[in-house]
């Protein structure tokens, strides 16, 4: 694949991203609009209010305007990156997201790295020790981890390592890189273990399949060292389906960590999304939906670029044609 082809692929993805965001914003806006209750119901929360306050809120959030006008008013501002203010807290949406973006990104990347380390390496080891005790032990461990929801794992880890043997903090985000690393180790582990177990099984199966291929046998027959065969031929090929899966993991960890965020009181993006959805906080929901869509598209783009790096068949596809 030539550099031009890669740039073309990136360009196409970015155009698709814009179209996706346009469609998504309208769909999300429509769904929140037809859901029972309005932002005024959520904002007042069944608390004392004067009719003047209700009227002021209705006008402030344009609830007295037709649906399409409401959408247009939102879109007009969003086009100049003004996502408005949270209807629940009255803070600018970008400030609210900004306060949570850093910790969520840190947690997502940390959990992602742990997932790769705890998923791929044991998966490859299990494949190499197929049907041996180590393999069975790792597979059994993976089944347990896979069956344990992240928030249960979180509570267990909290009890074990923050209360019983207090080596990690029970809550908080920490300040500075090392302090954050320390604070987010348990949440990242809780988030990573379940997915790592899945990745372990996936890597194991992929590696076993590759090890059975003729080219591995031929490489061995050519007298190449075991290390060379495993790393250069087996591992790189086994990695391709793993990369497919891991591409979307980063986005999942970023926005889907709500249970772990709740268990560890991290106040991240996932928790913010749930809170916004529960309270029909339209500006917040819209901004988060956009953010998550961008992340998913970018994460998949990165996965595709990783393909190009890993798989020579893709890299040389354009040149041989």
């Amino acid at each position, binding site marked *: 694949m030539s550099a031009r082809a890669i740039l073309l692929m990136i360009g196409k993805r970015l155009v698709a991203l814009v179209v996706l965001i346009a469609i998504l914003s309208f769909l999300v806006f429509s769904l929140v609009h037809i*859901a*029972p*209750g*309005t932002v005024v*119901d*959520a*904002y*007042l*929360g*069944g*608390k*004392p*209010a*004067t009719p*003047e*306050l209700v009227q*002021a*809120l209705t006008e*402030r959030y344009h609830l007295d305007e037709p649906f399409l006008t409401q959408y247009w008013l939102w879109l007009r501002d969003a086009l100049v990156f003004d996502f408005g203010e*949270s209807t*629940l*807290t*009255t*803070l600018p949406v970008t*400030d*609210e997201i900004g*306060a*949570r973006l850093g*910790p969520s990104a840190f947690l997502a990347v940390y959990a992602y790295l742990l997932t790769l380390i705890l998923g791929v390496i044991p998966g490859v080891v299990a494949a190499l020790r197929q049907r041996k005790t180590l393999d069975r032990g790792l597979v059994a461990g993976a089944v347990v981890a896979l069956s344990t929801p992240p*928030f*249960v794992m979180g*509570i*267990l880890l*909290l*009890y074990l390592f*923050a*209360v*019983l043997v*207090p080596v990690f*903090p*029970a*809550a*908080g*985000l920490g300040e500075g890189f090392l302090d954050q690393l320390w604070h987010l180790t348990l949440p990242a582990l809780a988030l990573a273990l379940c997915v790592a177990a899945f990745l372990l099984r996936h890597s194991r199966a992929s590696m076993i399949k590759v090890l059975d291929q003729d080219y591995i046998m031929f490489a061995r027959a050519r007298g190449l060292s075991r290390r060379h065969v495993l790393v250069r031929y087996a591992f790189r090929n086994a990695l391709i389906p793993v990369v497919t899966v891991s591409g979307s993991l980063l986005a999942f960890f970023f926005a889907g960590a*709500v*249970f772990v*965020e*709740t*268990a*560890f*009181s*991290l*106040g*991240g993006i996932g*928790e913010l999304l*749930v*809170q916004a959805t*529960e*309270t*029909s906080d339209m500006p917040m929901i819209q901004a988060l939906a956009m953010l998550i869509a961008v992340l998913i598209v970018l994460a998949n783009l990165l996965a595709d670029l990783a393909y190009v790096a890993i798989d020579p068949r893709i890299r040389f596809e354009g040149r041989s044609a």
Partner: protein
Amino acid sequence: MSETNSVPRRGRWHLALTLAALAAVLLTACAGTGPAARKDPDGGPRPADTARSADPGKPVSDQHIPRLSLGIAGQITLVNPAENMGAGGLYANQLGLEPLLRIDAQGKLQPWLATEWKRVGDKVYEYTLRQGVKFWDGTELTSQDVKYSWDRLRATGSRRSAYFAPVDTVEAADTYTVRVRLKQPDASWQYTPAMWYSVVFQKKFAEQTGTKFGQPGTLLVATGPWKFDSLNPATGMELSAHAGYWGGKPRVDRISVKSFADDNSMALALRAGEIDLAPTVGGPTGFDAAAGGGTVTTVGTCATSLLSLPLQQAPWNDVHVRRAVAHAIKREDIVAATQGRAGGPESTLMSPLLLRTLGSEKEVKAALEEVETYPYDLKAAKAELARSSVPGGFRFTFKTIAASAPIAQVIAAQLKQIGIDLEIKVLTETAWYAELGGQNKPLTYFETGPCVPDPSWAALFLSTDKTGAPVGLNFAGYTKPEMKKLLADGLLEQDPQERLAIYAKVLEHLGEDVPYVPLYAEGNTYASIDYDLVEFGSFWSNMPWVLNVIPK
């Protein structure tokens, strides 16, 4: 429902409650199994039940605490008292923002920023400010600041405007005198200057910061014993002692307020020593199990949780059905289902604690003699239902939010015994609020939240508009014409004895018509291993409450 710890605030975390319930099961095996509420080792009154003995502005304990870490459920997003904020934000706000007066455990007014207050006319109240009160920047508090704060809090669009609805004007009569003119006589106003929604902040800073006032990067300037140093909506807040505080420099140097998504993670943080005190706990039993036992203290308040019966729908428009339901409710079982949150069973919409501000215990008891209550009596319940339009029972939908579902299940099981078959439908909070505000009110249950000392507070749940239609928080849709006049008279009348008679009459009507079935006195719960909170009653959070912290 009034603010702070009402069900919806708790209910927002229904996701978290699921986790907490699971965690409680998980941790009970490994945690200590202490009692739900700590008993005083000497058998005497608990500190929480003890009245605050210190002078205004002074801490109850002289113990020096370099740093106090507080755990608060929910996030603190801003400190602007006129805007929306969760319960956690309100509790943190009260450490820096002060009202003019304080309400003691008996519901009596005490001096705070104001040294004197008097009603100088039917509709006019005057407040004399304490001299020498300094803001955090060293400037002195004057009546102009109070006027500005209250005008901002009562402005159209302010989240607190409903509380200032009786006010016509606020005047700065002189440097230290604030004069409030009401639109008409209103006996409930006397308590407003002592409540969390009438706190005072500096005019100059508020004007300078405009729309950014109270937001995380801007914060505000006030007079309280602790200054707001920083606020992160995701993690919490940092405060430090105000050296020029009018009550003397506080004995707690720094306060860290940490936000928690749920009780369970807060309980584990308490157990791990990462927080010292959690001033509010939603589910005391589960919290205590996770925190290791013996950590929680619950005090009953003047708020009453209610089963709301939709009077405008059949068969609830039949009073015999409503009375049957009232007799079929076994309050003790419902109290048990609250997981330690309830203060105890309650059988009147207005708590006797509220009425005690109008008369002695004996006088209140005498006034309530004619009020009909409905003790648990299945035989009487069945007899009432037999006299109704649906003697064989009926099916109906009970709408609730996830956090209240366990209570709804208990109510459904109890009513099943008399042939009323309830289908429980769990709604999102927003959808539930929309139903409550709609024309067809749902059959539901709710907690009313922190109360005001005046019995007129209960009028919130009985309000009607000029046409007699239910408005506001009148979720049952109760529109008896006599009630409107009684409630109006209750505010116009100033004599406590007369007012007691009026509110007793209100309760008589409610006892006769049963638009709501009172269930239990709501409780406030704090949790700590090392500290107690003195005077932790219904009104604990209306002042800088860390001044009431004492070591255990």
